[in-house]
């Protein structure tokens, strides 16, 4: 079927699926090369052992666990934007939800692979299922990440069905796949009702699952007796950090694809300004938790805790620690509270700083506590090796590649929600306003 005959109002959103430029292929090839190199380094690690990394005693967890926590943290982008904004009926979420949900799906896959990469004997992974111990936080982790991945994939798929139906009706290359995946969706009243109901149930369900995922990951650390880890604040701290890094990653992805696919009409400045405000709020929340954590540690002045504390504040890790504070607190506050600096360029710069800062935060949490054991051993030193760095780069490349692959099959902006917003939202919102405002007095009907 000839798809060039269709000129939809939202043709820009359909275009990436049908047209692929040379630049796309070149970029994808470069990313694939990085991923392949990462796989090669991992195979090397399988042959020679974990000794190819920089880990040692006492620092027996390094880049892999840092990246694991980091990537799973980014997955919270999907929940916040999609579920919470849908729940609060915020209309500006419409062009954003699809990208947020896709980030969650891809990043959970990549993040979930990292503990396996970190294992000394991945060939024995089935031991977890045959003879595992549910008392161990690692198993809670396995369960909650699987549940979250399933829930968020379904939550990505359900609002995708009407868009798949639109693509199916246009014909084209993947017509058969779209037909299968759209499950006979035709936009009838009954179908819309079923879909809406299921999305509503899921959006409520996905929030506690998502909160539990990062809480459980934080409990991997806080359930131990290590100084600097054994803190009750870790659960909420990690969730806040995850949402924070998630929004930043979402902003970066949005700006990148807005440029690449010319989505300026759909992802307007106002969306970024709102997301920037959210980012600022999360930055302040993150700072509050961090400050509370370190003040409590410092005031208590327990020797093993102080050893870790001083290592972070003035010792070998002080560079990373203060860089983290600059990236996570100073830059966002400066750029996002100032109207002149809160441009798209400024927001992009802030988001990149936040993503870097949050990765550093995971580094700061994990390595200093391991390098400064309770007994007076000499302080450990951890230098990442080429294997670990290349696997981190490969994971990032795989993430971008996955996103690009998705954008070639399905629209990155939820087309039916944009259409719904255009056609129905004005009426829905003004009806809601009528509900809130007092019935006496004249509510201006110019809105309708």
């Amino acid at each position, binding site marked *: 079927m000839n798809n060039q005959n269709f000129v939809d109002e939202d043709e820009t959103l359909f275009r990436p699926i049908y047209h692929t430029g040379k630049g796309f292929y070149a970029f994808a090839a470069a990313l694939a090369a990085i991923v392949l190199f990462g796989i090669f380094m991992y195979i090397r690690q399988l042959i020679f052992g974990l000794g190819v990394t920089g880990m040692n005693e006492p620092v027996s967890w390094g880049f892999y666990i840092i990246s694991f926590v980091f990537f799973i943290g980014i997955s919270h982008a999907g929940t916040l934007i999609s579920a919470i904004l849908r729940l609060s009926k915020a209309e500006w979420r419409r062009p954003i939800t699809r990208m947020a949900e896709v980030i969650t799906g891809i990043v959970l896959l990549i993040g979930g692979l990292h503990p396996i990469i970190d294992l000394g004997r991945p060939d024995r992974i089935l031991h977890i299922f045959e*003879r595992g111990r549910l008392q161990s936080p690692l198993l809670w982790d396995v369960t909650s990440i699987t549940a979250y991945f399933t829930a968020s994939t379904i939550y990505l798929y359900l609002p995708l069905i009407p868009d798949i139906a639109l693509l199916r009706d246009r014909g084209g290359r993947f017509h058969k796949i779209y037909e299968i995946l759209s499950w006979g969706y035709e936009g009838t009243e009954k179908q819309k009702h079923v879909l809406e109901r299921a999305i509503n149930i899921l959006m409520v369900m996905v929030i506690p699952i998502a909160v539990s995922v990062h809480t459980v990951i934080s409990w991997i650390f806080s359930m131990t007796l290590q100084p600097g880890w054994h803190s009750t604040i870790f659960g909420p701290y990690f969730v806040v950090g995850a949402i924070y890094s998630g929004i930043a990653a979402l902003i970066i992805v949005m700006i990148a694809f807005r440029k690449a696919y010319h989505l300026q009409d759909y992802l307007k400045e106002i969306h970024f300004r709102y997301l920037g405000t959210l980012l600022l709020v999360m930055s302040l929340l993150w700072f509050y938790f961090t400050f509370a954590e370190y003040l409590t540690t410092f005031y208590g002045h327990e020797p093993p805790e102080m050893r870790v504390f001083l290592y972070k504040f003035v010792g070998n890790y002080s560079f990373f620690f203060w860089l983290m504070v600059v990236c996570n607190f100073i830059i966002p506050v400066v750029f996002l509270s100032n109207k002149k600096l809160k441009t798209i360029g400024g927001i992009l710069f802030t988001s990149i700083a936040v993503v870097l800062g949050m990765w550093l935060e995971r580094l700061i949490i994990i390595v200093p506590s391991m390098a400064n054991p309770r007994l007076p051993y000499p302080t450990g030193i951890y230098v990442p090796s080429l294997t670990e760095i290349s696997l981190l780069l490969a994971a990032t490349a795989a993430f971008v590649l996955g996103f690009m692959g998705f954008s070639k099959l399905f629209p990155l902006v939820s087309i039916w929600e944009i259409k719904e917003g255009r056609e129905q939202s004005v009426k829905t919102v003004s009806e809601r306003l009528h509900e809130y405002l007092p019935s006496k007095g004249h509510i201006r009907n110019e809105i309708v």
Partner: protein
Amino acid sequence: MLSKIKSIFGKNILIQTVLLSFLWMLASGMTLLLINLVQVSYEVNDHQSASIAISILGIIVFWILAGILTYVLVGLYKGRKKESNK
């Protein structure tokens, strides 16, 4: 007979049922896994209460998710316009 089913439900019914069954397999798989782990914890006398608590949570979540998706996909089928050759 296959073509009759296909003409009633739509030509992609087979593949779609297989795809949906993946989710049911996941839910059953997780159930069996978690029950197995509870059994192991009883054998070695190792904090059975924690095993049971986490298993119950996990099993419930997965079956609810499978249920939601089935509800949607069955609902979508039922809500189709009556067309004989689609």
